[in-house]
Every structure is written in structure tokens, then in C-alpha cells.
């Protein structure tokens, strides 16, 4: 497999692509992957078809196209307010989590802290705890504090539960910034604040973005915490609203459900595409250290 083919790409860059060899193993791999992909894609296919079907039900079928479902959902006040709630909830959570993760990850990455390793392991352990385990005591606490049914206090708990993983993620991103750059800047005469602002922060932007997007996507889809901690219809975020669609009047409005789900997943899909770009291309410290 030494044959390579040079393909000219935008501008003067050449990308060297090795020829692919189709082997039995590769075909088997692809077959399994396609099969697995179907498992995930079929529900989504149903969602797309049902959303434009005039008479949808459980089955996946070629729809008789209509936009009535969209008109129906967009006309519902509760649907729109749930978007607003989700935005507030996920936005607040993301800002809080990212900021705190950045501030705690930097010293964890750079400074000598006694018992750092056990501490990091505790954080890792905490990030693996299921939140449903904590819901009852947290509910009691929120009742006691009078924090129930507020999107901002709910975001506080969401932030707390997403923080451990975000710290781990951030720490690894900061670890990847060569500490020698900071030494070089210090010897160059820069103050600590200048080093953070002009050297460390610009280089952690991709990592911070990934942490933020990851946190946002999780908070956007969070169900059990807002379900328990909020109750007024105005404060129901999207996932709780979907649940309401399903069970509210004992009958399913499949078309509305599909449309709402579809609309609700759009931000996630967009952010995910954005993040995958960051994941593939942005971690380039080329030229910093050999």
C-alpha cells in the first residue's frame, strides 16, 4: 500500500490521500456500522416523516406531505415558551460551568497542589454519579431554600452536576498548552495577567468552546432535574414539554410531537457540527514547540 495519490486542494495545498483497498474485513466493518447506524437513524427518519405527514402514527411510511403540524406547533404558546426556558436554563448552566471549570482547571493543570491526584480522581468519580441518585435530597434542599420553580436555581444544580466532567475536560485542554510558552512569556517580561490574557487564553479558546458546547448540549437535553425542580408551565424546558406532549390528554398528537422534537434538536445538531470542526482542526499548536 505504498501508492499515494496527490490531489490538489484549495489554493496551493496538496493533500496526499492513500488509495483505499477494499477488503473483506473492511466490508464487514462497514456492514456492521450501517446496521448500527440504522438503529439510530430509523427513529429520526420517523421523526422527519411524521412531522410532514398529514395523518401520522407509529409507523414509518412515505408521508402525504403537509405543513399543518408545523403551523400547529408554532402556534402553541407553551411550545414557544419551552424554547425560551431551555435557552435560559442551558445558557446559564453553560456560562457558569465553563467559567468555573476554566478557573479551577488552570491551577489543577499548572500548579503543584498537595493531593492533586486523589482530588482529580474524586472529581472523576463525581462526574460518573447518576444525578437521579441526588434528586430527592436536592429537592428537599430546594424546598428548604425556597428555590423551587426557578430556571436560574435549577441551572445552578445543572451546573454543579456538569462541573466535574467539565473540569476534567478543561484540564486536559490546558495541559496541552505547553508550559514553556508561559515560561517564555515570563522571561520576556510579561505579568501573570498578561500571560493569561495573551498566551494561555487564546490557546485554550478551542478547549473552552468544546467544554461550553458539550455542557450546553447536555443541559439542553436535561430532563429529570428540570422535571423535578420546576412545575409552572412557563418554566418547562423542551424535554419536559415533549413528555407533556406524549401524556397530557391520553392521546398522542404524533405530528406535533415529531415537529417539536425536530425543532428542538436543531440547535444541538448545529452545535455538534460546530464542535466536530473544533475537535478535528483547532488543536494545533504547530510551531509552538517542535
Amino acid at each position, binding site marked *: 500500500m505504498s501508492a499515494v495519490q496527490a490531489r490538489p486542494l484549495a489554493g496551493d495545498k496538496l493533500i496526499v490521500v492513500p488509495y483505499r483497498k477494499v477488503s473483506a474485513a473492511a466490508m464487514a466493518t462497514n456492514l456492521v456500522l450501517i446496521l448500527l447506524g440504522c438503529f439510530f437513524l430509523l427513529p429520526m427518519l420517523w421523526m422527519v416523516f411524521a412531522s410532514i405527514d398529514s395523518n401520522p402514527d407509529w409507523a414509518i411510511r412515505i408521508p402525504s406531505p403537509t405543513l399543518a403540524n408545523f403551523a400547529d406547533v408554532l402556534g402553541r404558546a407553551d411550545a414557544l415558551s419551552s424554547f425560551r426556558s431551555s435557552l435560559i436554563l442551558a445558557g446559564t448552566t453553560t456560562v457558569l460551568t465553563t467559567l468555573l471549570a476554566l478557573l479551577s482547571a488552570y491551577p489543577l493543570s499548572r500548579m503543584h497542589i498537595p493531593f492533586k491526584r486523589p482530588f482529580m480522581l474524586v472529581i472523576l468519580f463525581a462526574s460518573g454519579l447518576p444525578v437521579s441518585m441526588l434528586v430527592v435530597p436536592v429537592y428537599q434542599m430546594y424546598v428548604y431554600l425556597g428555590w423551587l420553580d426557578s430556571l436560574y436555581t435549577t441551572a445552578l444544580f445543572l451546573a454543579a452536576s456538569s462541573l466535574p466532567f467539565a473540569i476534567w475536560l478543561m484540564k486536559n485542554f490546558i495541559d496541552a498548552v505547553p508550559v514553556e510558552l508561559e515560561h517564555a512569556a515570563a522571561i*520576556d517580561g510579561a*505579568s501573570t495577567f498578561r500571560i493569561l490574557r495573551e498566551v494561555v487564553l*487564546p490557546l485554550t479558546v478551542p478547549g473552552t468552546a468544546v467544554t461550553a458546547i458539550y455542557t450546553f448540549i447536555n443541559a439542553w437535553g436535561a430532563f429529570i432535574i428540570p422535571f423535578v425542580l420546576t412545575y409552572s408551565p412557563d418554566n418547562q424546558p423542551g424535554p419536559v414539554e415533549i413528555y407533556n406532549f406524549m401524556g397530557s390528554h391520553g392521546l398522542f398528537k404524533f405530528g406535533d410531537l415529531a415537529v417539536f422534537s425536530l425543532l428542538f434538536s436543531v440547535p444541538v445538531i448545529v452545535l455538534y457540527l460546530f464542535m466536530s470542526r473544533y475537535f478535528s482542526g483547532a488543536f494545533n499548536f*504547530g510551531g509552538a514547540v*517542535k
Partner: protein
Amino acid sequence: MLSEVRFDGVHKIFGAETAVEDLNLTVNAGEFLVLVGPSGCGKTTTLRMLAGLERPSYGRILIGDKLVNNVSPRFRDVAMVFQSYALYPHMNVYDNLAFGMRARGASKDLVAQRVKETADVLGLGKLLKRRPSELSGGQRQRVALGRALIRQPQVFLMDEPLSNLDAGLRVQMRAELSRLHQRFRVTTVYVTHDQVEAMTMGDRIAVMNNGRLQQVDAPETLYDNPANVFVAGFIGSPRMNFVPGRLASSDGRTSVAFLGITTPLGTGSRLTAGASDGEVTVGIRPEDLMWRPAAGPDCTLTLSADVDVVEPMGHEAYVTALCAGETVTSRFPPRSGVRPQERVDLALNPARLHLFDAQSGITILQRPPAAGAETLRSVGEARTNDSAGGRSERHGQPEARRVPSRTEEIS
């Protein structure tokens, strides 16, 4: 602005490990001092202490007259070139160069002017808009150098700056560094594990091992009169031969027996320490151990040896041979026709012997000052160049590209 640097009883202890032990060293103002030693010998720690990235456990570090133990790197007015270059990847070359001056609050005009000057000196003029990732290794090296140069600091610190370059570029940059130092004469501390870099670039060389300073001297002195077995073995390539020997004295004259022969010590040489009887380590540089037919009249000793390996280098050949049970390396002329398993006669000038105490490894032979130079001349064609030149040649570098070393200029 020339400043001297002084280490005064400096220790650096990491937990149970002593990285640097009782370092006393003065780097003269304007001097290019090379700190050399094997990895883990404490040379980089020493440099980092001078930069302010590590704090000495004990002792004092002075830059000029200023005690800098507790001064942060920011205020030390030193510039450092890192082994990895540590260029800011998100800034272009211009901003990389300007960063230090901006951090010190220089005006925009001054920054622009100095960036231009520095870029001209280093030939970076056309690259100012590029990011480090778009530069070649040699260009990155230049930017790293420029970032240090532009600040006009009191002291330059260089941590193995050439080790990431390929061989050809390394020779070229070596010359460039020497040229820059001759032009700006900034006090420089240069860390390397490469003895060729040390010999060719240093005004003086400080050899370290196991956290201890072994010897500080001019390259030729270090080469001709190593203070101990470590320095003798570290400086010079191929490595000096070490064989066991024994001192004996009769009629008031001391002689040394080794490799089955006995020779009186050269006239004027005298033992500095120890009894005149006892175990010693005899050191013989491969270039002092020659093929009999090619040796000069000073090589009065003859040893018989069995050739084991012949390594032709083109302009000469190294022959590893077994002599009285010891493996020794000797320098042969090219195309000598000698083959493995053959028995050959080796010639040796007794004045070129090195003697070390067998236990402590410290040199016990003091040669008359002129002895080294005399031998140099008498060996004639074998050593036409100064020692540094001869050595760099041996490493396969074309003569024209070599740095004119200071010795050549003096002589």
C-alpha cells in the same frame, strides 16, 4: 551593558534528589560559557535557576551586582532560547518578536524599528507575517533567537537550542550563533550535551556531572589537561582510552607501567598528588595512539595489538584493537590497508599520556605548560588544525562551513 553572572554555593534539591550540588561558578561579562554534561547532570536546572524558573535551595545567584534569588524571571532582564523554541503559536513572527518589548511597555515606533533590525540580522524580513506552524525548523530557531536578541538583555540563556535541527542546519546555526556573539558580546550561558558544540562555541566550558561542577576551562585546556577521568572521557571523540597502570620509582625517577610496557614520565612532568607507587588509570586519546608507519619521531613507545574493528571515516580511520588484554581505539591514516585480526604496531608519544588516580579519578600528572603545544607541533601533519578544528572535521563537516574558532584567530 555587560554583566557577569555568579553562582555562589548554589544547591538545588528536589525531594530526595540533589540536582545541583554546591555550584560555584562565575561567568565573566561578555563571555560565552558552555555548560556541558550528560543528561540529568544538572546543567538545565542550573540554567533554569538563572532564568528564575527554579529557585535555588541554598546559595546565591548574582547577575551583575544584583542578588536575584528572589527576583521573578520577569525582572531579571535575561532572555532565554528554549530547546523547543516555545514560540507563541497564535501569533505571527512579528508579534512573537515584539511580545517581550510590548510587555515592557516599549513604544510602537521603537518596537517596529527593533523588530525590523532584528529581522534583518537574522534574515527573517520576509517571514514576519507567518505563523510559527508555517516555518521550517531553522526558521523557528531564528525566530526564537530573535525573540531573545531583540530585548538586548544582560544575559542570554540557551537551553540546547540546536538539538532539534538536522545535522547540516546545526552546523550552520552554530556558526551563526558564534557570529552573533562576536557581534553583540552579550554574556551567554549555553547548555548542551554535545561536546562538539561546547568545544566550537565556548570561550570557556563548564563540565558538569551528577550535579557537580567538574572543571571550568578554555576548550583547549580542558582537552589537553582534563581534571579527572569524567572530563577526559566526556570531551573528545572518539572517547579517550582508559587502561589500568602502575607507578613505580627507581633512582628518583618515576615511571609508569601499562599495556605491558614501562616508560618514565616525560621531563618536566611531575606528579601532583599521591605516592609515587600505586595504581593509576592511564588515559590515551585515540589520536595520540597511532599506526607505527605513520607516527612521528616523538612517538617513542611501541605497542603490539590485534585489530578488532576498522572504522574508515574517509579522511582517517579509527581502529579498535586488543592490546595486552585491553581494548583501545587508535587513529589510523585513511587507506592503511589494515584488516581485522591483523597484528599491528601502535606508536605513542609518552608526553601525551594522562594519568589519573585509580580510586578518585582525579588527575595526578602536571605537565609543563608548553608540553601540550610542543607535542601539537611535533606531531605535525597529524594535527595541523587546532584541537577544536580537528575534531569538528572528524565529525564530517565541510571545512568551509566551520566557525572560525577563537584559537585560530589568535594563532
